[in-house]
């Protein structure tokens, strides 16, 4: 007999009281790598200034470190970041470029970041993925390729510099250009 998972409720507008201590881009910890900037937008393309993102990503070798040794006193866990949006719905983070991650025993997934979105108005958090535009492995990524072609681009960050280490990726909660989210 399985137990029913506890129901979700919105994180509400005041989550910073309890959750801000862990907020911050890995960037502030001296991380170098790929910088992603973007905004969280609602159905009217209005910014969402009270959203929170949580990121989960593999190391450059494609392994999830899973923080088995636990966080340090600043809450740093390799591969995890929590980021609150600013007044214009903006966010930015810098992460070491993740490596390709195992899909099954023989195949790999293209480098990507798991992204969870929490906000007032979201009774359940949203789960999505961000992919990197310059990765050749994207074309064979089983998850990316399972998304209908006309919406796949919403999971793909956009280059804003020739080096490819500065990217833009917006999260659109609803409407035109709505980001693909995963059901749970």
């Amino acid at each position, binding site marked *: 007999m399985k137990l*029913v998972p506890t129901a979700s409720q919105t994180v509400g507008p*005041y989550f910073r009281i309890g959750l801000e201590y862990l907020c911050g881009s890995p960037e502030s910890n001296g991380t170098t790598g790929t910088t992603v900037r973007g905004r969280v937008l609602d159905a009217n393309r209005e910014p969402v200034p009270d959203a929170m993102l949580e990121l989960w990503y593999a190391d450059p070798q494609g392994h999830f470190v899973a*923080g088995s040794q*636990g*966080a340090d006193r600043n809450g740093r866990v390799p591969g995890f970041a929590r980021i609150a949006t600013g007044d214009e719905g903006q966010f930015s983070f810098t992460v070491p470029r993740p490596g390709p991650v195992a*899909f099954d025993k023989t195949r790999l997934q293209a480098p990507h970041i798991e992204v969870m979105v929490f906000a007032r*108005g979201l*009774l359940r958090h949203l789960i999505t993925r961000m992919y990197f535009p310059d990765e050749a492995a994207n074309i064979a990524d*089983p998850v990316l390729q399972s998304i209908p072609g006309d919406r796949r681009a919403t999971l793909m960050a956009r280059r804003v510099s020739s080096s490819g280490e500065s990217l833009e990726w917006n999260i659109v909660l609803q409407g035109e250009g709505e980001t*693909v989210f995963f059901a749970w």
Partner: protein
Amino acid sequence: MPTVPVVETAAPGTQPDFHFPPYVSSILRSPRKPLAMLPYTTSERTGPVFGHGIVAAHDNDLTAQHAGEPIGERILVHGRVLDEDGHPVRSALVEVWQANAAGRYHHRVDQHHAPLDPNFTGCGRMLTDGNGYYRFKSIKPGAYPWKNHHNAWRPAHIHFSLFGAGILSRLVTQMYFPGDPLQPFDPIFNSIADEAARNRLISKFDLAASEPDYALAFSFDIVLRGSMDTPFEAVPR
């Protein structure tokens, strides 16, 4: 293209709808296009492990974070964090935040005309022990008005955030109190269609766990998605 293993979605009604118009903030912020099935790969099965480094000794005592004691009814909140098989989730990070006894949050956005309490921030965190057990001390939060509709009031609640074994187990929820007359009118609470699932967010008054002459206790068990029997080990490459 290989088939992507996917996660079974929640039983109907046991989780809120993303789009629930009585909760006005959900109208423009919830996805309306079809959701994709959530993949079940290493990326979803794994998740951060926090450990004791980020939890200090008094982080589970919200009444002891300032020079004086906060105003309000002292409460003890405790319970177990379980997986879907009923097994304890050990070392789960539990983060909590709440309004003060007057129904005011220690947050710049909260303009409710009720007093702040200089001795209460309303933030706590802890790890579950080897039995999945957690416990914290606080004061009972007050109800407060909000702008969702005319004469809208949130029932008293405490926000919970939990990390289980992987990001599939991630949960943010709210705990309510038994006998609160505001619950039937609250669109956030009532966004969960299934009555039993909804009522499981209401803690139970726990006289036995109360401390005589000191504080009343409420118990609140939490079930995270997934099963600890499925180990989250690295998949060989």
